């Protein structure tokens, strides 16, 4: 089977962004995932976020590993470069891409198998490097392409479609990211576009590693009663703690908030995230408290969502640590890289 191209019809009335592009220009091929798959909603959120951010599609690199989630880059931003790497190793490809061209917008899409099992090491090290990218985990607690095995994010007591009960504790990418010093840690639900779109936009504008763990139910293998990653379960136990509104640079803050309700965080390009407390007492700038809060809610079976932690100031990203020049390394002319013949001859005195 080959991929299915989506017919491109642009209606006259479609809104155009600052680049003169319509939302259709940010779409991709037809999805081959199961009807109702949570991943397709995330795809739609990505399309909307990049359209609204006025980012030229060809300056985006779509990175993925292997799995259902990793197939999705084919379904959005068809004018972007895509890199479907080997299983669990997308973070290393993204690291190299960023090292060579720091101007690329790197968007990684991975899954719970790809990031929390085979690729756990690479995922954690990309986060530790504070690689400047958005890293979305489409988390459904199950292996789809190999038909229904538990993944490492499956909750204790969660039932598989064939009745098996998971007894191993889940790996939570959000708690791990908080513990490892992640600079932007968010969680959302594929069914909540209101929440997800601004998170993606803020993640793109954040300088450093922006983790967005998105609960994304698998309709075929993990949407039954007894599953803790089903649509029904997600809706019932979703616990939004903090909502992030994204405000582009120079735009006015239009919504009215009660004083003290909202904490604006300025991102490196001048845009802002407005953090609105949904749950009383939640503090998105306190790493330790965030972990405590998430764990406390987890004991009651609830899943805390929102922009759970952001630190825009202290951490350096890969290039900040390395001290790389601002011009992408891949674009430096050769003359600036080669020390030349005289330098070589002079250097060799030390080898005599």
């Amino acid at each position: 089977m080959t991929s299915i191209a989506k017919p491109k019809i642009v209606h006259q009335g479609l809104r155009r962004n600052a680049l003169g592009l319509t939302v259709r220009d940010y779409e991709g091929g037809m999805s081959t995932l199961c009807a109702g798959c949570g991943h397709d909603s995330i795809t739609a959120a990505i399309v909307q976020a990049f359209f609204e951010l006025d980012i030229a599609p060809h300056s985006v690199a779509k990175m993925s590993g292997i799995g259902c989630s990793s197939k999705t880059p084919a379904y959005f931003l068809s004018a972007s470069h895509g890199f479907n790497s080997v299983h669990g190793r997308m973070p290393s490809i993204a690291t190299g891409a960023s090292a060579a061209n720091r101007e690329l917008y790197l968007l990684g899409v991975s899954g719970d198998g790809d990031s929390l099992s085979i690729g756990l090491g690479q995922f954690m090290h990309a986060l530790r490097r504070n690689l400047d990218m958005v890293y979305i985990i489409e988390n459904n607690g199950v292996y789809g392409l190999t038909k229904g095995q538990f993944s490492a994010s499956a909750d204790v007591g969660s039932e598989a479609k064939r009745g098996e009960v998971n007894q191993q504790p889940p790996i939570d990418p959000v708690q791990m990211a908080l513990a490892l010093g992640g600079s932007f840690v968010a969680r959302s639900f594929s069914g909540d576009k209101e929440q997800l779109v601004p998170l993606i936009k803020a993640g793109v504008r954040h300088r450093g590693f922006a983790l967005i763990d998105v609960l994304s139910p698998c309709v075929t293998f993990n949407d039954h009663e007894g599953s803790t990653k089903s649509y029904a379960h997600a809706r019932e136990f979703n616990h939004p703690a903090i909502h992030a509104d994204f405000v582009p640079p120079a735009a006015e803050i239009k919504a009215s908030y009660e004083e003290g309700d909202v904490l604006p965080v300025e991102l490196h390009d001048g845009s802002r995230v407005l953090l609105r407390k949904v749950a009383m007492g939640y503090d998105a700038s306190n790493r330790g408290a965030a972990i405590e809060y998430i764990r406390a809610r987890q004991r009651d079976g609830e899943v805390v969502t929102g922009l759970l932690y952001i630190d825009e100031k202290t951490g350096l990203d890969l290039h900040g640590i390395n001290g790389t020049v601002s011009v992408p390394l891949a674009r430096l002319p050769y003359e600036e890289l080669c020390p030349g013949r005289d330098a070589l001859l002079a250097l060799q005195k030390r080898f005599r």
Partner: protein
Amino acid sequence: MARQQKSRINDFVLKIANVNGTGSASANSLLMKTVFRMGIPVSGKNFFPSNIQGLPTWYEIRVSKDGYLARSGSVDIMVAMNAQTYARDLQEVAPGGVLLYDSTWPRDRLLSRADIEVIGVPLARMCNERFANARTRILMKNMAYVGVLAALLELDRDVIVELIKETFARKPALIESNQQAIDLGLDYAREHLECPLPQRVKALNKTTGHIMIDGNTAAALGCVYAGATVGAWYPITPSTSLMDAFKSFCERYRKDPQTGERKYCVVQAEDELAAIGIVLGATWSGARAFTPTSGPGLSLMSEFLGFAYFTELPAVLFDVQRVGPSTGMPTRTQQADLLAAAYASHGDTKHVLLFPRDPHECFELAVTAFDLADRLQTPVIVLSDLDIGMNDWLCPELDWDPAYQPDRGKVLSAADLETAKSFHRYVDVHGDGIPQRTLPGVHPRGAYFVRGSGHNQYGGYTEDSEEYREVVDRLSKKWQTAAKLVPEPVIRRSRKGAAVGVIAVGSCDAAIEEALDRLAAKGIHADYCRIRAFPFGKKVRQFLEQHEHVFVVEQNRDAQLKTLLLAETQHSPARLQSILHYGGLPMDHRCVTEALEQHAARGVAA
């Protein structure tokens, strides 16, 4: 023993037995550099343990007026500084040779030999009397034996002092103490010993225009000069010094003195799986990128190597081979990754390999590797080894053609894409099997999808047999193109019509060259083809055809080069004979000399 009279000027082997972590490396390199600066060809081999402190270590220096750089196979002068290995060190000295030991402590009487001269010098005692600091005493003991040897071998004291001054230019206090220790040994020897030995040096002018450099340093320089900007690695002996050197050269040449901004990026990855991934991400984005590794690292990189072959991404790897499998003997040398590198990964894969023979070629072939990787859009693996990578070799000075421009291959620019009607990633536009590629962020028309899944010539996902075969058959065609582009073998012809040939790669070269000279002196002639690249080109095939009997010399147990030759050329196995050296120490000429002598004798008998 009465001293033999026959002088051995500029033709002997000196070996120093020591304990690692005692600072003997600088003393030994001082000895070797002194010989080099006196204009006499010299080579040094370091046999060190996989350990930081306390285990036996040896350094072998061959002084050779004829310029032979391989090991000679025997030891003429042993400096036995390690009580643990004294017995075996004593046994290793060739009859008529000399053993120098530290006579501060008594030796076991049973350990003696009548056919060599044993010289005792109270090195520790002298240093303890002269120096106060405990660590200094240990370090200076090494300098003291250099002083003793300076007298015994007639090394030029001025050259030694000059080298000390250069080495410790930034630590003037050390110049004084090191010089004192040298004189301590020198004066003692002149006063108490019969100097010089028959094995001694005499200045020549055979090292002008040469340097002493290790292969990892030279390869790192090649990376700098080729314009590599991204390096990713996971530390592994014996490749580690390659990235260390790259970083230090970049700090010197690629760092803005005012702003401190760097025109390079080195990422120490979490493992080799990531190191190769980082390289591929970087080359995909348009940088020249590389990773140094060794056998175990190459194994971990296998999955991505197949991916890179199939998705057609450039990458440069340096496999500084060591003894395997597994941890094996990480500080010993071998050529045992040939097959693993040639066919790394699952599925149908083949990789371009380059085989430098010495540090000079590490420099040159590093540059070639980047050009080939970009031109062919595929990984290129430079197969060096520990002997080349970590030992200092005498080689011609490195030179650089100022007119050199990197061959970045078929990369479409924004202007190309602007005027192009369309772009399809895997279409064979020029009939050479090499498609065109684009870089992310350059032009909207350049976007395509890199995927390890089956893809058609347009880059689209496919599971269609015909479309898949079209792509992999073109990859075969590209492989044929590669065979024409890779460096040709170096062929040494003895005289017209030699029926016997020798084939080898890499660091076997020095030993083979010496063997062929020795054999020629006895009237035994053979031609020699030093393969420098895989795929094997036309000239390698011709060489095989032209010679009735070909010896394949290599440093592994399973005759991997021979296997590769048989698999890739369909040559008759009966016409190839292996000479295998795989104990982990650099080879000397003897295995080659003996095998060819036996062959010649059989020929005469028949």
